[in-house]
């Protein structure tokens, strides 16, 4: 008997049953499913299992090695938290999409070959867009449309890269790829798009905040982190990624500072946080890769927690703009405290998950003496606190009193948030179980006096800067241009510019081929020999003498008036023979050439 399944199957097949269940049964079922997934993970053996042969290639649905399990565990834990957070939903749609999305993400993580990876990759895109359009607003469907187009484009790049890679190497296995040549560049670009590396990042901040209260929580966890996983496996130590990641950390901060919508602030902070992971992958040492993987783990915990608290506020108030919120601590103190745990964790406060994981990446940059990278990461560490650690909770729960007095959210939301807050602190206080899951043996000690005091200095003095510069950080009712401008403005503008002339041109070409030419042929067919003769006559003879010109003009006028069939002229034997000879000659040339 098989004692375990490919983890993806449990969620994907399990999702199919959700719509059949009602009320309490469904609630029990969606909590039971991730627990089953967790038990299944514990039973998985090392190595490649569930291997199928497919056209001389091997499909591997369950590959377990040192990089797999840390992502697998956090994905299943996240699904559990997300399912609890969604228990209040009356409709099954978002839960089905959520489980399908989580399942296909697990599929990517356990895929040992590029083909099944690609299939799961595309299922992820489809399931996630369902979570976006589930909001059922005009903005959400528009953003969902843009989102799926961008991801289909990314999937296309990935597919082209995979096909070329398989042809070049003759193997479908998904292992270290490394950046060399076109095939690997295309694969890297496809991965980078899902990792939201600028300029391929605008889909994230555009679409995530448009999703539902529950949808955004799921979205924040899976797409970017599966991309981190595939990059860590395929492209560790790629210098380009180190720089791309460093730029991402700053890019996310700049936009998060400018943004007004609280969930968009958090979306930009995903780009910032994934930047740390990408930098770690680019550095590529054991410490850096451990840092990237563990930071992905911790990041999912606190980002989901922050998205949940933002979602709870949105659910209770119907508002998501910082300018319309404020002062909610009075009536939502529990949400506020749980949110602050997430905020502390994303800021890497000692005793939270961010501290025990992110510091590995920063230390790795330091050990390798990448001065610029290290400095950027230090600046970004301060910036994280500024935009996500203080700004988000401050403007939502404190700042001015908006007059709103919403109640605490439903109990299931608080339980889900409490669960994640507990894990954030657990990973911060006792990181050893997480360290044991990491790709390489960990001999890193996060809690040295040096680290703790240094980090606290960064955070407290950032807080000082925040309150001193508060006047500058006041929210404005604006949106910020991002690279989605290219396909929301520039491309449509370009199309409307070249559209009308191109349409006219295409119309003319169409008319020429389907009207002008057939008409001419029909006209010619009415009296082919007569017309040819008149044409030859006008070309070679008419005009030589005045009379011939006049006669030809008369003839032409006659043809124009009455059509060519009426201009019947007697044919001389000589001209008939000349024609036959001409066509025979043409035929000979044709025959000779082809």
């Amino acid at each position, binding site marked *: 008997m098989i004692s375990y399944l490919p983890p993806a199957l449990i969620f994907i097949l399990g999702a199919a049953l959700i719509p059949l269940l009602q009320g309490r049964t469904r609630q029990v079922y969606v909590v039971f499913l991730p627990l089953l997934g967790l038990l299944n993970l514990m039973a998985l053996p090392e190595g490649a299992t569930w291997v199928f042969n497919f056209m001389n290639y091997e499909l591997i649905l369950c590959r377990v090695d040192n990089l797999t399990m840390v992502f697998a565990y956090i994905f299943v834990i996240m699904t559990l938290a997300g399912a609890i957070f969604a228990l209040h939903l009356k409709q099954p749609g978002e839960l089905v999409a959520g489980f399908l999305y989580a399942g296909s993400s697990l599929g990517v993580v356990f895929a040992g070959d590029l083909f099944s990876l690609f299939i799961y990759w595309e299922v992820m895109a489809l399931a996630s867009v369902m979570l976006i359009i589930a909001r059922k607003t005009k903005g959400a469907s528009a953003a969902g449309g843009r989102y799926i187009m961008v991801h289909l484009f990314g999937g296309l790049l990935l597919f082209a890269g995979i096909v070329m890679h398989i042809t070049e190497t003759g193997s479908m296995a998904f292992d270290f790829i490394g950046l060399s040549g076109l095939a690997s560049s295309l694969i890297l670009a496809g991965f980078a798009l899902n990792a939201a590396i600028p300029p391929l990042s605008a889909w994230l901040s555009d679409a995530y905040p448009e999703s539902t209260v529950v949808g955004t929580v799921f979205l924040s966890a899976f797409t970017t982190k599966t991309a981190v996983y595939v990059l860590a496996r395929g492209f560790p130590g790629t210098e380009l990624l180190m720089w791309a990641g460093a730029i991402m950390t*700053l890019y996310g*901060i*700049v*936009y998060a*500072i*400018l943004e007004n919508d609280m969930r968009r602030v958090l979306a930009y902070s995903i780009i910032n946080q994934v930047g740390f992971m990408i930098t770690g992958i680019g550095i590529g040492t054991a410490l850096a890769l451990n840092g990237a993987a563990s930071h992905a783990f911790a990041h999912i915990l606190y980002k989901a927690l922050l998205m949940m608290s933002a979602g709870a506020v949105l659910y209770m108030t119907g508002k998501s703009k910082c300018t319309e919120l404020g002062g909610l*601590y*009075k009536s939502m*103190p*529990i949400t*506020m*405290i749980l949110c602050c745990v997430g905020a502390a964790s994303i800021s890497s406060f000692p005793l939270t998950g961010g501290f025990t994981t992110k510091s590995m990446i920063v*230390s790795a940059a*330091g*050990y390798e*003496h990448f*001065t610029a990278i*290290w400095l950027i990461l*230090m*600046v970004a*560490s*301060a*910036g994280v*606190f*500024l935009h996500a650690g203080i700004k988000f909770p401050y403007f939502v729960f404190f700042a001015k009193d908006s007059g709103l007095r919403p109640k605490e959210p439903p109990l299931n939301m608080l339980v889900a948030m409490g669960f994640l807050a507990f894990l954030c602190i657990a990973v911060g206080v006792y990181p050893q179980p997480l360290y044991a899951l990491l790709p390489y043996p960990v001999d890193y000690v996060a809690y*040295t*006096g*040096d680290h703790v*005091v*240094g*980090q*606290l*200095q*960064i*955070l*407290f*003095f*950032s*807080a*000082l*800067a*925040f309150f001193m*510069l508060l006047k*500058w*950080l006041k929210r*404005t*009712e*604006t*949106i*910020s*241009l*991002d690279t989605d401008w290219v396909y*929301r*403005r520039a491309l449509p503008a370009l199309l409307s510019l070249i559209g009308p002339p191109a349409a006219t041109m295409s119309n003319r070409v169409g008319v020429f081929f389907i009207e002008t030419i057939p008409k001419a042929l029909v006209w010619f067919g009415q009296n082919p020999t007569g017309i040819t003769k008149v044409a030859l006559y006008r070309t070679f003879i008419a005009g030589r003498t005045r009379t011939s010109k006049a006669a030809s003009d008369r003839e032409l006028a006659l043809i124009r008036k009455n059509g060519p069939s009426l201009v019947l002229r007697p044919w001389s034997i000589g001209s008939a023979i000349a024609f036959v000879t001409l066509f025979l000659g043409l035929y000979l040339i044709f025959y000779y050439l082809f």
Partner: protein
Amino acid sequence: MIKKIVDYLDTPERVRIIKGLFLASLVLLVVLDLFVDKHPYFEWAGFTGFSALCGFASCALIVLVSKSLGKLWLQKKEDHYD
């Protein structure tokens, strides 16, 4: 319980005390820096209060750069794409 704590702290006087504690902790952290065993990755980053300076300066820089970019270029009215 959380509600009680929040309500308890929610007076101007107690908020002032929290502010005072915050400012005191800034001083304390820099003083603590003198006593910890430091292993800086770069020699120039080893002086006392480097992290404090780094945190403050980074934030000032980030706010300055973000706001300028926003004002001059990136920030548009909310109906920009409509």
